[in-house]
């Protein structure tokens, strides 16, 4: 049963990844003008002569039909060759590998921050459902999602780096470089996770075994912290994991505010420089990470909670 499910899911993931690669490749064709000319102008720093364009086309296989070009490109990509930056004679994969750690550590730290806010807020909300405490903790979480994170980033720099002088302003490095960016990033995700914790807690609290625990004479605190929370956490953790791909959205702006040399900053610079191989590389990588992390979470969810119906074959 599970094996069959797995096979069908893997097949669909592969299909999606294929489509993703087509779209990524097609991005450069969104640009006005002929890609060969675009690339050559960048490389030569002046408009190419028609003859140069011809030669370049032949050399790069650009005179072949687009789908053949795509196949060549995909072949290279599958071998880990994403091309070379127009502006920097370095390979796109090397640039991305250099930028990756800064982004990954930020994403992980951001998720931890969101959990640190959401767990207490969600639990309080659930335990004191529909009271003032519930409302306040929901508002706090909502505030987090409503503040533009780049604005929050500047405010954090202002207070902690400049007035208090306790944390670094920019760059990457030790844990101290991570604190402010992670807060700016994590607060944005906290609201979603809080609501999730709250709902999940409420569900578990209604479940029978909690009543049993309660009637067995366990104190309210033990019931909440030990039994309810533990059971409620399972879906929360899965969903937070699912957020990983989504966290990448937030990292772009944060990396710019804190001048962190990550994937997001790389992408933005490449966009402004019209350095398409780099743009394609970053988009492809984030999409793959996104698809694969979603897939893993799906599987995990399925394993953890057999109630999840198999596949989406509802029809």
């Amino acid at each position, binding site marked *: 049963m599970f094996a069959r499910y797995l096979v069908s899911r893997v097949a669909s993931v592969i299909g999606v990844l294929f489509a993703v690669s087509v779209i990524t490749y097609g991005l450069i064709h969104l640009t006005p003008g002929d890609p060969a000319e675009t690339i050559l102008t960048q490389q030569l720093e002046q408009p190419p002569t028609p003859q140069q364009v011809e030669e370049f086309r032949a050399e790069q296989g650009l005179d072949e039909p687009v789908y053949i070009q795509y196949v060549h490109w995909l072949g290279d990509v599958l071998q880990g060759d994403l091309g070379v930056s127009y502006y920097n004679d370095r390979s796109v994969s090397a640039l991305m590998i250099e930028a990756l750690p800064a982004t990954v550590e930020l994403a992980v730290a951001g998720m931890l921050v969101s959990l640190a806010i959401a767990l207490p807020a969600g639990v309080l909300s659930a335990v004191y459902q529909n009271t003032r405490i519930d409302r306040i903790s929901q508002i706090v979480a909502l505030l987090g999602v409503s503040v533009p994170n780049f604005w929050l980033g500047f405010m954090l720099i202002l207070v902690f780096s*400049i007035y208090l002088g306790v944390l670094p302003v920019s760059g990457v490095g030790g844990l101290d470089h991570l604190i402010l960016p992670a807060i700016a990033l994590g607060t944005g995700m906290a609201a979603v996770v809080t609501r999730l914790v709250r709902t999940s807690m409420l569900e578990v609290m209604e479940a029978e075994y909690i009543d049993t625990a309660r009637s067995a004479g366990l104190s309210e605190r033990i019931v909440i912290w030990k039994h309810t929370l533990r059971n409620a956490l399972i879906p929360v953790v899965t969903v937070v994991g699912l957020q990983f791909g989504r966290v990448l959205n937030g990292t772009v702006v944060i990396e710019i505010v804190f001048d962190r040399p990550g994937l997001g900053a790389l992408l*933005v610079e490449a966009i402004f420089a019209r350095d398409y191989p780099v743009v394609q590389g970053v*988009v492809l990588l984030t999409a793959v990470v996104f698809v694969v992390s979603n897939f893993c979470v799906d599987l995990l969810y399925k394993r953890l909670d057999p109630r999840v119906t198999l596949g989406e074959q509802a029809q």
Partner: protein
Amino acid sequence: MSTTRPQSSTGIGERIRLEFRRNRLAAIGAGMVGVLGLVVVFGPTIVPHDPMEHAHANRLQGPSLEHPLGTDELGRDVLARLVYGARVSLGIAILVTAIRVVLGTVVGLVAGYVGGIVDELLMRLVDIQLAFPGLILALVIAGILGPSLRNLMIALAVVGWSTYARVVRGSVLSVKERDYVTAAQLVAMSRRRIAIRHLLPSVIHPVMVLATLNLGTVVLATAGLSFIGLGAQPPTPEWGTMIDSGSNYILDAWWLVTAPGVAIMFTVMGFNLLGDGIRDFLDPKQQGRLEEI
């Protein structure tokens, strides 16, 4: 046939009033959105300054009676820019959300109702769109098309419609099996009429909730992309751009960054509270659903 509609038609206004009394947060949200509406409609006629007018001799002045929120690096009145900026931000949010809603609803309705291979194809399309982190895809599309508000709206619309499609399709599927649709089919109503008479109303609720919440996220995304430089271009007063240029003066002219930041926060908060309220009101069970960007 239509007597089985889920809601009673009596006293919808009364129910909203009661709900607001019960759910004070929703009421606050509605109030905030109302204030915003007033600002958008009447603000520009009230503020005395032109948001575009340079006054270089008066640059970077602090808040005063003349300029309640000070002036920016070109001597423009920050309050005026903020108020006009509300039009820009909300205008974009509404337009983008509307496009997403229409696109997503059509796709969802068709997929859910027609089913079969059409459904399969459309849902694969949805999967593909959801395979990209939304903001990153929007960033790239806006960047490649060239920085402008129009392109920003295209980019945001392209990446946001699929959530609606999924939700709508889900609602259609659940409704489809219910008696009255089958009954209608028996009576041989045309497919289109069935869709309009019965299916559409049942998908309106989730779409309404999603759209309200979406207005907030689009405001945030617009500000973010503009902050990066891929959205509004000068001199358009847009909140994200204002934060970007104001951040150069954050140590010297705090009002430049604070004012648009608070405005965005207020707006997004308002839509979120209202959206949550509408959800609680329409469908108290459906909580904890993840929002897309």
